[in-house]
């Protein structure tokens, strides 16, 4: 059997999706099901004096209407922030209560006030209109930049400050700056984004009064963690009587990591009325209530020697958390951001300060890249600016400062095991034909277009995460992963993983690994995930962790299968276990042709004894059955890196900005399925281009989200994009046996600075994301006017 690791195996999961047989949450209908519709706050900030459901309760088809009072009466707990951050002054972060249905205040447009359950969706929707809520509208704090200077929106949270966190050595950094030959400064806004997985969120609760078991079907990236939170903190149902199923999930990008208010309410309601309850978000609800991403304001300074060597870095960031602190919201702008501000440069000292603030906007949490795109945007814009101001070529400036020896202990947190940054830079320079760029610029000019080029050399920390490390810095859980291999008597295999696939192709990639490891054809291997009743507890999918952590757990479970198989084979072949080699699905006695296939061994494990001609006694002390579980806790993060180079053309009259060439060379360590990895890079880069050129969540002064539909929030479409050039270099990770580093977020991390550096290079004006036609056009006009006035 040829090795599958490294080959472009077509995806096992595709056929169902291509023929309309996918089974997403909204596709599930249960007998006797009811429909839920949420009454949401139309105000960004208000206190509620009364929720009157009397009229609505009498509307046709209404089964039940529940409010925050009912929730409190049932002692249902609130949603949590899962990572404790400690401020520089030693105080714990400040977190407001976050009940799944509002108690007496609402804190963003879309915040949940009541749920209406009816026999049909239309009836639920119509009755929701009849729920009367007496709001007293309060002054909303909307802008990130206003939060610290505004009255608190949550009682007792002074300055709206959740935490004021610092990382690094401040005095040493100040000293480096005092001696610096040159200081480069930059002010940046990282625009707020809305993740927009194409499948809107949905939940279905189903309670069985006879067994007292509760099932929640939900669009989620980590069903076990969702069950844990809904059990341990919301107290809806004990964990052992609670099953959470995340069936086919139509994209997540972080936005489906968290248990949401709707999940809690639907699960609780189904139990309360003892009938299934179904809720499916309308797209506008998704815009309003799915966690948003990014939203930082940053000032950063780079201390540099005249020869271009970086000697220090200072970063000050205000991160907007929105109305409440969501599950991963506090780690995203701290430990996923701060350590990464160094990029892949050898910077001797640095200090990063992050103030996280509450505003009356939708909660912000991890979105593809989570902290790392914000860090990369900062350092890559700053480095590009430094190169320009100092008259050093952008590639040369970067490579002069690259980390070049591994392992490398960075001055902040990470110990980077492996990499070769010049390798991907050089390959990208060649692929993008950097040396002839000026000719292309001239050529564009002759057509009346401004052409620019921009670089981004990035580093990410993936494979999240070593439990002891993350728990020492505030994580409320360990971030190991689980796997179970169940070898069936007939020789096929069910593989259970605690990660979740919602587009990443785990069914295929993980089966490739098992197939190679155990020598079983890939069609006989089935991956099972997304159901807390089936496999062991797992931590889900985010932070490009699934393969590095979950894949390694699978490898370890395979090793245990092989170990047991050796014992059984030795017994059957009358040899000692250490005389048995395992290769390509066969247990072979060294230096002989005596062997048993792994299928025969599995059969023997299930039928220990004599069956007709077949003799398969198990050795003494070996249990029947062939099933192994492994939990893997990574020893370190993994560190993908790469170089992306973007070229844009700007129409001087209209401001229209187009990406005309894009080159990505990434080092993901070992690649299991290059086809799937390419897909991840394409998707990530396009989301990054979206952030740079099109996407922006905008609120008006009163806190209304004015980009709450696809008519207003611009998503990249097929005709906005060029053909991307993708290539790789590879330095295998040393922190896991597969050598893999993770690839899911790289594109979204690398692309925004590459595109923006190109736009700024083209127009020679510093503008913020997204570089929409309007913004670019206005900037060009203003410049023209200024130049005229100056002349």
């Amino acid at each position, binding site marked *: 059997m040829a090795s599958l690791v490294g080959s472009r195996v077509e995806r096992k999961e*595709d056929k169902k999706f291509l023929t*309309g047989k996918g089974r997403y949450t909204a596709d599930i209908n249960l007998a006797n099901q009811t429909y839920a519709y949420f009454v949401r706050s139309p105000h960004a900030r208000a206190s509620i004096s009364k929720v009157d459901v009397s009229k609505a309760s009498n509307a046709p088809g209404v089964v039940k209407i529940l409010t925050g009072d009912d929730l409190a009466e049932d002692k249902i707990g609130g949603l949590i922030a899962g990572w404790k951050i400690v401020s520089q002054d030693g105080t714990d972060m400040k977190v407001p209560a976050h009940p799944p249905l509002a108690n007496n205040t609402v804190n963003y447009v879309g915040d949940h006030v009541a749920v209406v359950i009816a026999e049909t969706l239309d009836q639920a929707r119509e009755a929701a209109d009849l729920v009367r809520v007496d709001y007293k509208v309060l002054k909303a704090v909307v802008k990130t930049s206003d939060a610290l200077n505004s009255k608190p929106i949550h009682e007792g949270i002074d300055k709206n400050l959740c935490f004021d966190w610092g990382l690094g050595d401040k005095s040493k950094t100040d000293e480096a700056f005092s001696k610096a030959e040159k200081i480069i400064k930059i002010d940046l806004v990282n625009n707020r984004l809305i993740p927009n997985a*194409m499948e809107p969120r949905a939940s279905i609760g189903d309670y069985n009064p006879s067994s007292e078991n509760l099932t929640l079907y939900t669009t989620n990236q980590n069903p076990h963690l969702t069950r844990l939170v809904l059990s341990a903190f919301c107290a809806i149902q004990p964990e052992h009587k609670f099953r959470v199923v995340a069936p*086919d999930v139509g*994209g997540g990008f972080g936005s489906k990591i968290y248990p949401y208010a709707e999940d809690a309410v639907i699960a609780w309601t189904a139990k309360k009325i003892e009938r299934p309850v179904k809720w499916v978000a309308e797209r506008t609800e998704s815009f309003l209530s799915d966690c948003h991403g990014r939203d930082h304001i940053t000032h950063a300074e780079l201390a540099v020697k005249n020869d271009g060597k970086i000697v220090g870095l200072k970063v000050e960031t205000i991160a907007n958390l929105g109305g409440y602190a969501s599950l991963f919201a506090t780690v995203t702008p701290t430990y996923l951001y701060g350590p990464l501000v160094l990029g892949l440069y050898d910077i001797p000292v640095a200090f990063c300060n992050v103030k996280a603030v509450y505003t009356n906007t939708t909660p912000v949490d991890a979105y593809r890249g989570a902290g790392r795109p914000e860090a990369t945007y900062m350092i890559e814009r700053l480095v590009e600016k430094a190169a320009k101001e100092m008259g050093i070529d952008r590639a040369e400036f970067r490579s002069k400062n690259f980390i070049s020896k591994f392992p490398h202990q960075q001055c902040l947190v990470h110990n980077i095991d492996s990499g070769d940054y010049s390798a991907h830079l050089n390959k990208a320079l060649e692929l993008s034909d950097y040396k002839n760029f000026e000719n292309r610029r001239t050529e564009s000019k002759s057509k009346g277009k401004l052409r620019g080029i921009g670089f981004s050399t990035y580093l990410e920390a993936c494979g999240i995460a070593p439990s002891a490390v993350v728990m020492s810095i505030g994580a409320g859980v360990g971030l190991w992963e689980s796997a179970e291999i169940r070898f069936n008597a007939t020789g096929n295999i069910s593989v259970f993983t605690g990660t979740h696939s919602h587009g*990443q*192709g785990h069914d295929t990639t993980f089966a490739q690994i098992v197939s190679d490891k155990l020598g079983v054809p890939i069609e006989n291997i089935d991956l099972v995930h997304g159901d807390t009743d089936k496999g062991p507890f797992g931590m889900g999918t985010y932070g490009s962790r699934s393969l590095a952590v979950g894949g390694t757990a699978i490898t370890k479970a395979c090793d245990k299968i092989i170990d047991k198989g050796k014992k059984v084979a030795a017994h059957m072949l009358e040899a000692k276990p250490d005389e048995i080699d395992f290769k390509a699905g066969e247990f072979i006695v060294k230096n002989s042709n005596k062997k048993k296939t792994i299928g025969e061994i599995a059969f023997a494990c299930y039928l220990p004894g004599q069956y007709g001609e077949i003799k398969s006694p198990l050795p003494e002390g070996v249990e029947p059955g062939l099933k192994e579980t492994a939990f893997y806790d990574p020893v370190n993060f993994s560190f993908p890196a790469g170089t992306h180079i973007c070229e844009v053309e700007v129409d001087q009259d209209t401001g229209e900005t187009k990406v005309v060439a894009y080159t990505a060379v990434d080092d993901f360590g070992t690649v299991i399925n290059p086809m799937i990895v390419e897909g991840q890079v394409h998707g990530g880069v396009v989301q990054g281009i979206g952030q740079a050129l099109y996407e922006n969540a905008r609120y008006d002064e009163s806190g209304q989200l004015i980009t709450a539909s696809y*008519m207003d929030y611009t*998503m990249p479409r097929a005709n906005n994009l060029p053909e991307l050039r993708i290539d790789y270099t590879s330095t295998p990770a040393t922190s896991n046996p597969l050598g893999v580093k993770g690839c899911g977020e790289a594109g979204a991390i690398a692309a925004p600075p590459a595109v923006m550096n190109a736009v700024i290079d083209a127009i020679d004006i510093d503008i913020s994301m997204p570089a929409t036609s309007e913004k670019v056009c206005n900037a060009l006009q203003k410049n023209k006017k200024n130049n005229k006035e100056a002349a």
Partner: protein
Amino acid sequence: MQRVSLVINGNKVSREIEDRTLLSSLLRDILSLTGTHVGCDTSQCGACVVLVDGKSVKSCTLFAADIDGSKIITIEGLANNGKLHPIQEALKKHHGLQCGFCTPGMVMSVVDLLKNKKNPSDQEIRDWLKGNICRCTGYQNIVAAVKEAASKM
């Protein structure tokens, strides 16, 4: 309420429905043809595209009652006796889908394109697909798949 009669994937279907029932809702909620997806409420995403009398349309934008007597093909009815349509094959080969949510609409849009264009250029494909949002793939592999499917038809 009114009665509509349609031929869906070759089967005659007749149902008493409300005037406001959208075609997407008839397919998904009444006939359990959940392969057709709903991704938005403003007719922007294309997840819901089906063929009505051979033309690709957004089924979330159409009252079922308005198309009485039409022939409809949904994603479930595209493969012929288990044999996938060339675009279904090509999307698999070129990894033109990830989460699969946009895929049914994408496929049905492409079927219409390929009926009318023999060998569409990259730009023609990209322009045609601008009504179908995919958040996962970045479109590149979808474009490659469309080209391959075109060459096979």
